[in-house]
Each structure stands twice: as C-alpha cells, then as structure tokens.
C-alpha cells in the first residue's frame, strides 16, 4: 500500500461567476521513500491538489468527491482538529514564496520551535537545541545566533531553507513542496533541490514536488504526473516520461525546455505552446487539450468525447487520443495564417 493514495479527487471553488472545477478527477499515489513530481502550467490544479490533501483549502473551495488515504486513513472524513494533528507532524508542506511565508514579527527560532512544541513532547530547551540542529542541517551558517533573528534578516534562499527546516522539524513521513524554487534565483534553485534530495534520503521521507518547470522534476522526481486543466494527462516514471513521452502536451513541455548539450540538442527556436487553457468554470465536454493540440483535427473523436486515462504500457498512463506511439499522421499544419 502506498503512503498516500489519492483517488478520483474533485475539488471545486465557488466564485461569483459559478463553480470552478479546479481539480476534476485526479488520482495519484506516492510510494514510501519516493518522490512524485506534479508538473503543469499555472492554473492546472496542481497546487489545489496539494491544498486538498492538507485540508488547507480557502473557504470558497471544497472537496466534492474522491478519497485521500494517508497511511490507510481517510483524510477527507477528518475534522479540522484531526487534520491539525497530521499537518506538520505526518505531512508537511512548503510553499512558493519564502518572502511572505514567514511571520515578519516573530523570530525565526520561535517559528521553528512552535511546530515541535505543538506536536512533540519536548521542553523549550530541547526544542531550541533541535532548532539549531535543523538550521545547521539546512546549511544556515551561524545557526545559534541566527535563531534569534527576524525573517527580514534572511535572504530569499535562506528563508526557503528555514521553511524546509520547519517542515522537517517533526520528521514527517511526507513532504509536499509547492513550487519550492520558483520564486528564487536560478543560482539558488539548484542548491534548494539538492538540499531537498539530501534530506529526503536522510529522513526517509516521501516527497511531492509541484512545479511548472520540467527541469526541476527531471532532477528530483522518481515518478511524474503531468496535469492539464484540472486533470492528469500523463503519469509514469521520470525516466519513461523523458525517454518516451506520449501526450502531445508533454512533448510540447519538453520541447519548451532549452537544451544546450547532450542528446536532444535542439537547434532553432524554443517551441512555445500557443493558445490558452480552457475555462474551468464550464469545462469542455471534449478533450481539454484539443484546441491547442497539433494533432487533433476537427472531426476527431477527441473533439466530441473526452479521452479516458488509459495504461498504454505497464506503469505508463496517458489521456489522449493521439499518443506518440500510436501516431501515424504528421501534425496538422495551420491552414489559416
């Protein structure tokens, strides 16, 4: 049994204009000790999936159906109080913007220690000592002094490390990292990813990394799920995904990667994906990617009926009518210029 199993999750948001189907039938699983990467563009529902797992949806959002099982326990049936016991202790989460994710009026030490004091039976001194250890683990120099600093004394990269330290403080089984490097400089990003991997191994955690950047999951993930418009469109191991992508969207995402050397060196321009994702207020009844798909044409089946998520190879799921391995035709050329 996997550590985390999400089964046909649907999370909708109430807005003035109607109900937005942010997550529309997502199923993922995270094995013990493995990292799952969830990739997709802004608005595809990846963050909402994470928030649903944590029970941190804003008041306008709710889980309409589906199940989320962590270590066999059903999270969707739990009250907030029960979830509070799990958050920070069993499942921890770090967020995208380290600059705003820490309370500016509390000392760093306090913010690290309060998690431990909440979940673990430790004295103040023990908590303090452990906090210093944690800061050292995430490579913050001068940990003892810096413990009493306020967040504004830390740079973005350092704050994200603090967030990681906080997340690890109670030795969670699962760490969810929502766009952990997006708000950071490129030079700092690699360091954070390395740190995450290092800590994951040491603490024997499982991890979910959410990102829009294929480069990030290439490094970090064991398995990858590609999301589009609230649904999973491709799901398999990282190796398999990069070697044999099936979904046109995945291919496009990979094509948008700059590659300077090695096997797939691309000459010429990066391919942008034209068009925009569909309106999730009223999701289309056909394939959601079809309008932007270079392989779909007007009278295809996918223009009328949504394709199901099917196992095209063992361990490789895809939701499209035009998977790469079954594709005969060449891309439809734009007839209108």
């Amino acid at each position, binding site marked *: 049994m996997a550590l985390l199993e999400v089964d046909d999750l649907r999370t909708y948001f109430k807005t003035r204009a109607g109900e937005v189907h942010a997550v529309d039938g997502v199923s993922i699983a995270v094995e013990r000790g493995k990292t799952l990467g969830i990739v997709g563009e802004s608005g595809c529902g990846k963050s909402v999936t994470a928030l649903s797992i944590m029970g941190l949806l804003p008041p306008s959002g709710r889980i309409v159906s589906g199940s989320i099982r962590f270590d066999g326990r059903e999270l969707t049936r739990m009250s907030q109080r029960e979830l509070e016991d799990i958050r920070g202790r069993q499942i921890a989460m770090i967020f995208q913007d380290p600059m705003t994710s820490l309370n500016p009026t509390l000392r760093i030490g306090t913010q690290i220690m309060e998690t431990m004091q909440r979940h673990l039976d430790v004295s103040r001194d023990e908590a303090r000592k452990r906090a210093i250890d944690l800061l050292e683990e995430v490579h913050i120099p001068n940990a003892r002094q810096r413990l009493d600093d306020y967040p504004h004394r830390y740079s973005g990269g350092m704050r994200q490390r603090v967030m990681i330290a906080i997340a690890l403080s109670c030795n969670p089984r699962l760490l969810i990292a929502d766009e952990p490097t997006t708000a950071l400089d490129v030079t700092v990003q690699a360091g954070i990813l390395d740190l995450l991997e290092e800590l994951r191994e040491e603490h024997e955690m499982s991890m979910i990394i959410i990102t829009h950047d294929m480069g990030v999951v290439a490094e970090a993930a064991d398995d990858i799920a590609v999301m589009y418009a609230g649904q999973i469109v491709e799901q398999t191991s990282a190796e398999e995904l990069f070697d044999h992508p099936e979904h046109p969207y995945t291919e496009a995402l990979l094509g948008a990667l700059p590659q300077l050397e090695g096997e797939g060196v691309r000459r010429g321009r990066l391919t942008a994906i034209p068009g925009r994702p569909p309106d999730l*207020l009223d999701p289309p009844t056909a394939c959601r990617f079809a309008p932007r798909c270079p392989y779909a044409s007007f009278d295809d089946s996918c223009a009328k009926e949504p394709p199901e998520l099917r196992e095209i190879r063992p361990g490789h799921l895809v939701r499209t009518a035009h998977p790469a391995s079954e594709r005969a035709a060449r891309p439809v050329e734009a007839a209108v210029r």
Partner: protein
Amino acid sequence: MVVNPEEVEFRSRLVEREAGGETYAAGAAIRQASLWRDAVRRFTHNKAAVVSMVGFVVLLLYVVIVPWVSPYDPNNVDFSLAYQNPSLHHPFGTDEFGRDLFVRVALGGRISIGIGFAATFALMIVGILYGAISGFVGGWLDNALMRFLDALYGLPYLPFAIITLAIFGVVNFWTMVVALTVASWFTTARVMRGQIITLKENDYVRAARAIGARWYRILFRHLLPNTLGVAIVFVFLELPNVVLGEAFLSFLGLGINPPNASWGSLAQDGYSQYLSHPYLIVIPSIAIAWLILTAFFIADGLRDALDPRTTEHV
C-alpha cells in the same frame, strides 16, 4: 468576449494559436468585458449597494421635489397649528411655530446635502492639488508635505471650523462650505495624495511612458479613468463626514442662521422638546443617518466594483 471552449471552432482554434496565451489562476478565465461594464455588473450584484443607491436617490428626490410641490409655506407662522404630531396632512408633523416639518426637512436637506457636496468637491480639489504637487514634484518637498500631513492627521475639525466661521463673521451656505473644507482638508489630502502616488507609480503608466506615450495621452487614457473611479468613491465616503460636521456645528448653535435651517439646526430646535415632542428631533436625525448609511454602502459597493482585487467573500 468570453472565451467559452464550447464555442471554439477548430478553425478559430488556429487563429487562437497565433494569438498566444494568457494564463490565469485558480482555473477561472479572465473576462475581457470592458472595465466599466464589469464594474457595473459587480455593483448591481451587491444588494446593499443597490438598495442604498435607491435610498439615496429617494432622498435626493425628496429634498428636490417636495418644496416645489408642497402646499405649505415653510416660513408661515401659525400658532394654532403648532406641535401637531405626524399625520396625513403633515407627514412629519409641525414645529413650535406651526410650520410643516415635511417641507422644512426637505429644505433643510437641500442645504445640508448641498453643503455636503460642495465641501466634498472642494476637499477633493484641495486634495488633488496637494497630491499632485507633492506626488509629481517628489523629493524633499514631497517628503516634507507628507510628514506635515502625517503629523496633522486627525486634528479635530470642529475647533478649526468654528474659528473659520468666526473669521467670516456670518454663517451662510458658502462660509460653512469653506469652514468645513478648511477644517477637514488635512485628513483628506493625505488620502488623495496616496491615490495619486499609487496611480503615478503604477506599472501601466510606466509601460505607457516606456513606449513613448505623450503626457496627455497618459493623463487621459490611463490616469483619469482610474482617478475618476477613486474620485467618485471619495465623494461618497467624505459626504457623510461633512454633513455630520455641519450638523454638529448647527446643533451647537454655530450653524446656519435662521430662517434657513439645515438638518442640524432643525435637530437643535427639536432637542429642547425631546420629552414632549420627540419627533422634532427624531426626524432630522433619521434623515442624517439615512444619508450617511446610504452614502457609505454606495461607496463600499463602488470600491468593490472598481477594484476587482479586493477580497472575495463568497
């Protein structure tokens, strides 16, 4: 034009491909309706704002129409009719001189609301001037002016209004307007200056400049439409304060001289009779409260409607 994928024909899909993408958050597409239409729609969905708008208009109609239409002379003294309770003939009753209160309150409303609007506009102009000078000149002048306002924020306006009226010697419509403006400009100039700074620093102004747009184009296409919205909200926010200020001054006996009466002076007249004829003070007070409440909710609704970024409470 709303992007509705149901409508997407595959021919138009190709055109869309060229148009490039526009991302969104949380799965909701950005409606591309015009700013105003959107604002109007948001406003009309706000029940409190709509009800208040109706109430406000009703009040305006009341003060404008009733004095024209009323068969009673507001200044006609007839002691035989004095102190009548509200009835069909006199919906608001009569005062100690037998004058019909229904028409007197309407006339009082003309004065109170008139002063309110006049002073509010004056405040707006002062504020804009102050903010414009401060914002556009910038540098140490801006800093000094800002500190100046900060320190004077919240100075009690009654004393200054009273002194200004004493300087004029006579209290009429216009001296009252000036007095209230002089007394409250500290607080409001600060608000306006903040708005101007925000607008000036706004990214789209920078962008416009970056593409070499002329200053008048920036002014008319970018700054003014936004400022208009802010200005309208401001009017409805300040109006209650000014009207209340005038009412207080009148209540203290320092207001408009008789026979012209504002709501405040009507309340003052009525106050002495609060035990025997409470309606004399109740009615002008309710009129004031009505104005303040409706103006407030309209301002709230407008603010929500014009700034889509304010928190959604769904």
